[in-house]
């Protein structure tokens, strides 16, 4: 259906098929739309076979880093006698990104199903959905869906009556950007301050409560359910023939100075130019697009020219000098003062730095002060060198980066 606009014919509507369809929110409505068939299938399979299918599909993490999901799942070693956990990262705190929100608002059962499949596949009995504090409405729908699923025996000690235990819990965060970082999320879930942990050990070895844990983005888990139901080959139909590394469909959230903001689901490798002009309607009347941040506010910003040549998949955006990230497309037109925009983004990072590593804590605040000085006309040429140098000094020298 599409929300808030009708789906464009060039979209590849899989995850967003029921956006705007209020009936899909209920258990009955979801089942009528084919819901929980994938879970039933999964619980009848060997966990290792599910991992293999997901691996074969080429599905990669949709939260930002793009790590192959099946490979991540295969890190979990079943039968080591420890409890295993699945965490669903529904913190969606990257500015410009609002795709997980819509998945949870319109198809909460899709996420419950995805979590249950993921948990079973990695040998976990418990999945936690960590939802950011500001997502009050999605939280409400998720709580309702989980309750419905328990009442119907879909979750619990005997999930779907198939003799396997699958528990799904919804946890509300307090609204911190850093809690979208996987280890900070786990700390927060444990009741600690949401500071990232030093890796190694990686979550697959010692994650939530010190136990082997897999953490996946909302979109990834929901896509995994579709992969399982329709097969790896079906999922691989989307993507560039010359790039087998990026497969399937991807939700992009579009905001900023653009005619039709909203969520769009396109095949991997879709031309960014067509996306911006055909699907999203291009710039507002009388304006020109100046720059685009294609993957959430922490990926490099590119000019309109660079954007026009880019292809929308992991490798395509890297070739254009940026990253796919979380798929949060922020568009700036020629009326925008870029210094002001960047200063605003810098202020966000200075506000949200968890303060654990000195480089980020002090560096984000320092860059903000310099940028705001430049914005106010008090900048010097030396400031530019200092900014570049602080940037170098911050990159890679903190736990979360």
């Amino acid at each position: 259906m599409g929300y808030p606009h009708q789906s464009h014919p060039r979209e590849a509507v899989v995850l967003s098929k029921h956006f705007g369809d209020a009936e899909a929110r209920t258990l009955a409505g979801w089942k009528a739309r084919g819901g929980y068939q994938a879970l039933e299938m999964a619980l009848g399979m060997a966990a290792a076979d599910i991992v293999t299918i997901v691996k074969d599909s080429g599905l990669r993490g949709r939260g930002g880093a793009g790590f192959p999901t099946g490979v991540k799942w295969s890190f979990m070693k079943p039968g080591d006698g420890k409890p295993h956990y699945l965490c669903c990262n529904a913190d969606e705190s990257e500015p410009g990104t609002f795709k997980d929100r819509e998945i949870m608002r319109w198809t909460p059962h899709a996420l419950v199903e995805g979590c249950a499949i993921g948990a079973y596949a990695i040998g976990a009995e418990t999945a936690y959905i960590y939802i950011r504090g500001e997502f009050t409405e999605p939280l409400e729908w998720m709580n309702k869906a989980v309750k419905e699923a328990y009442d119907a025996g879909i979750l619990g000690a005997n999930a779907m009556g198939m003799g396997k235990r699958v528990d799904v819990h919804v946890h509300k965060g307090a609204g911190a950007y850093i809690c979208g970082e996987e280890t900070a999320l786990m700390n927060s879930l444990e009741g600690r301050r949401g500071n990232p942990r030093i890796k190694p050990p990686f979550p697959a070895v010692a994650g939530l409560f010190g136990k082997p844990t897999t953490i996946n983005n909302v979109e990834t888990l929901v896509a995994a359910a579709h992969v399982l139901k329709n097969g790896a080959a079906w999922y691989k139909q989307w993507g560039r023939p010359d790039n087998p590394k990026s497969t399937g469909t991807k939700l992009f959230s579009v905001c900023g100075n653009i005619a039709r903001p909203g969520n769009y689901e396109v095949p991997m490798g879709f031309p960014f130019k067509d996306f911006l002009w055909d699907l999203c309607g291009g710039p507002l009347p009388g304006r020109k697009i100046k720059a685009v941040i294609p993957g959430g506010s922490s990926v490099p910003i590119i000019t309109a020219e660079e954007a026009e040549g880019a292809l929308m998949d992991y490798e395509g955006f890297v070739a254009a000098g940026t990253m796919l990230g979380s798929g949060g497309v922020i568009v700036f037109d020629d009326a925008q003062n870029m210094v002001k925009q960047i200063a605003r983004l810098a202020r966000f990072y200075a506000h949200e730095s968890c303060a654990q590593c000195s480089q980020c804590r002090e560096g984000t605040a320092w860059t903000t002060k310099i940028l705001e000085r430049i914005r106010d006309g008090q900048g010097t040429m030396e400031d530019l060198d200092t900014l570049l140098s602080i940037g170098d000094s911050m990159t890679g020298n903190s736990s979360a980066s």
Partner: protein
Amino acid sequence: MCLVEVEKAPKLAPACATSVMEGNVVHVHSPKARDARQGVLEMLLINHPLDCPICDQAGECELQDYTFQEGRADSRYQEPKRFNPVEDFGGDVLYVANRCILCTRCVRYMDTVADEAVLCVSERGDRAVISKFEGEDLTHAWAGNVVDLCPVGALLSKDFLNKARAWELDRAASVCPNCTQGCNSVLEVRDNTVVRMKPRSNDAVNQFYLCDPGRLDYRWLNRADRAEQPMVRSHGALAPVDWEAAIAQAASLLKGNAVHVLASPMLSNEALFLLGQLVKAQGGSGAFTVMTGPEAPLSGVPDLALRAERAANVRGAELLGFAKGGNPLAGLTTDKVLIVADHDVSHLDATALKAKAVIVIGTTLPTALSHADVVLPIANMAEEEGTFTNLRGRVQRYFQAKAAPGLARPAWFVLSDLVAAAGGAPARYAPGEVFGALAASHAHFAGMNWEGLGLSGALPAGGAA
């Protein structure tokens, strides 16, 4: 802070939080690692006040040391510095937020070692500060360790505030005398005055810690009302004499008489050993009492607590034949000579301190003992070398930190002369010699030697008890 380059690792690793693995090649001084550390230092310093001249930590500040090693000479930071007010954290601790680098050692110590999570990081970004949880104070008996753990001058001891510069202090390895735990400590002295006691690490006893009641109870080592010269009673009054005359007078009083010794459990093993020899030679008895208080364990360290018995050498006194508790004067009869060896008499019945003769071997001459026949002034534990035996039987050396007042001499010295003058073993000229004789004659100390005790002490051959 300490970023190092590990070959084949994708990014620099924090040295303190990275486990070494087989085959690792680590570059500490590579240009990349050095640049990164300079970058971190610059960040740590942009909001750090340049107030080293008035900061208590100066001279023992890790940030200062690192800045000297590899910091920038100038600052590129032109913006106003962040400001937060100084906060009283309760207990002995003051928090100077502006100097804090948010390493969170204090937070982690209170949480995982003291097991009383009073501190936390509040706020985010460069607004972050260390805070107390609402309604909590740093009143845990071991909270003062956060001051030692703080690498900068953010957590300060109120007791030591503005008292001395770190480079003006003389330091001596010591053992905290304030309970039977025997925590290893450092006595810091300025102008012959003890101004601070800090923990000295010993994994077998106190790891890196010292309790607040222990570390803050050092002022008695500086008391001014000391016995400073030997005296003997002459024509009804105490008159100063030289040491030879005083020892001779004490020996003549002892001649043919049994003794009762009140021995302080603060005395060294050496002094107690010699007193024990005196009791053996003259016949008689020896006893002591010890002050007690509430026990306060540090839960993160096994077998570490502020112990109920508040004196360092209770175990040694017992081992060397002195009876603990009850009425310490029970063995005293008027036909005996009473020797009070620095034992606290303030809580005893003054009228019961009657004997054929009274010899005071003490750091002070209390009023209750003004009828003494001989007064032999001795050094306190900060003014001499010696050993204590802790409650688990560990024998530990402490070193001299300051000079004794007047003519006062170490107790082992005085007693060694007295034993010789009374017809016992010949005088010994070093505490190690006395300890050697002790080790040769007493099973608990068998096999130990003065040098071998080193800085961490030794347990008896059979192990801890």
